[in-house]
């Protein structure tokens, strides 16, 4: 791949794509993009292009999996074969199985699962193009899809990564920074409740750097949260008049 020994941060402290260390990539969000789904959202963050759809609450099959006192939340994170440089087999990889689990557990704290006993809510996430930090971008979109489906929630979940490239703690890693950088810290956050619902890390960071990265990621989540709310309003507040 085209990753040469390029410097990831230049002398002015700008990154390969011209961003400052604490700057997000451009984000575009649209809510309610799929007509069949009960809720859906499409997000672009840098070159990430991700679709999320929610079906439910609905009857759970097979029935013996239903829980008497709450709904069952199910989640599938999946990458399209053409989403990465070298074709990815469409069969779910171990990475996708793990991410499906952590994404579900990142969204679950937001949902009032006890409101719909014996039902299921399915969250489907398709990564159409991957450009680093896809789990975070997926959570941002999936939480909007849940809201679009009318699932009662405590707060929206916004997610953003931080990491370390060349001794600098930076926000929202892109593909190259994720691969070449020395640490990646994805965080999902509910700003109104100050609750961290996803936290992972790989790489090597001192405790001080780790703290800085988590705090920076939370700041990123707050900015994304504002955009999430705007996207929801754009879908629901502006009721267009029927013409033609």
């Amino acid at each position, binding site marked *: 791949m085209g990753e040469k020994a390029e410097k990831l941060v230049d002398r002015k402290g700008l990154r390969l794509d011209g961003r400052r260390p604490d700057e997000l990539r451009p984000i575009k969000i649209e809510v309610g993009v799929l007509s069949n789904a009960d809720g859906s959202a499409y997000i672009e963050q840098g070159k990430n292009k991700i679709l999320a759809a929610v079906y439910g609450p609905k009857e759970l099959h097979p029935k013996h999996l239903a829980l008497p006192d709450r709904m069952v939340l199910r989640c599938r994170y999946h990458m399209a074969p053409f989403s990465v440089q070298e074709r990815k087999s469409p069969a779910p990889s171990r990475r996708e199985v793990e991410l499906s689990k952590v994404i579900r557990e990142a969204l679950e*704290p937001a949902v009032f699962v006890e409101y719909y006993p014996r039902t299921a809510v399915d969250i489907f996430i398709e990564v159409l193009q991957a450009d680093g930090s896809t789990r975070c971008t997926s959570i941002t979109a999936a939480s909007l899809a849940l809201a679009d489906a009318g699932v009662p929630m405590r707060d929206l979940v916004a997610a953003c990564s931080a990491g370390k490239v060349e001794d600098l703690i930076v926000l929202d890693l892109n593909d190259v920074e994720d691969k070449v950088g020395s640490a990646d810290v994805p965080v999902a956050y509910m700003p109104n409740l100050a609750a961290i619902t996803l936290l992972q*890390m790989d790489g090597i960071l001192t405790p001080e750097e780790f703290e800085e990265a*988590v705090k920076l990621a939370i700041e990123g989540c707050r900015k994304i949260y504002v955009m999430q709310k705007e996207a929801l309003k754009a879908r629901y507040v502006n009721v267009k008049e029927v013409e033609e």
Partner: protein
Amino acid sequence: MSTAATTVVRVKQKQIAQLIAKGKRLDGRGLNDYREIKIEQGIIEKAEGSARVLLGKTEVMVGVKVETGEPFPDTPNEGVLTVNAELVPLASPTFEPGPPDENSIELARVVDRGIRESKAIDLEKLCIVPGKKVFVVFVDIYVLNHDGNLIDASALAAMAALMNTKVFNYEVENCEVKIKPGFMPLPVRRHPVAVTFAKINDKLVVDPWLEEEQIMDARLTITTDDDGNVCAVQKGGSGFFTLKQVLEAVQIAREKASEIRKKLGW
């Protein structure tokens, strides 16, 4: 998992939570105490390395097999490390036979991340012919009895087994690997230790045992290396943590990990 609340009787659930609120635990431990750790190494003669870890009643065996194979194209000068975990049905009534489920995949990947990101094994020393032949190290985690905190027990067992692993001596003749008599130890240079917390009623407890896991809101694993750097983190469970709790957990994890390393002589 989701059926957990039904497994521990409500009464006991209340009791565990009330005790924790007072800083005590049902099995007499303090909130930051580990259960007794026992490690045995070299228990499977046919494996190149092996270990069994008892963490209280949780029992995990790890076998390491070493073979030769091709390196990954993006790391032609490095050996290959793969970690797999089996939640063997005999270990718990909740484990079913069949292909690895999300719990065993998560377990394997969290242990893998700790070893890989701390650079515990010098993978470059496992290169035989660059781009062609390298040693492939298979770490197979076998959970034999599930009494909670499988991650920490598995991470300890994996490191103990790797430290016990011997690789055959070889020489290269015309790109052919010839086995020579004798062995060399696997180049282990770091000792990552995973420390797992359960959040119960807004309090953190270290090394949760099974009943605590069944009622916990969320789980947090922090893996640190010999210098106290953080090298892997994983949050699990359907609850959340505050920033304060996360930072507190990092501090405790570093202290606990260094205590464990000292006790084990790592």
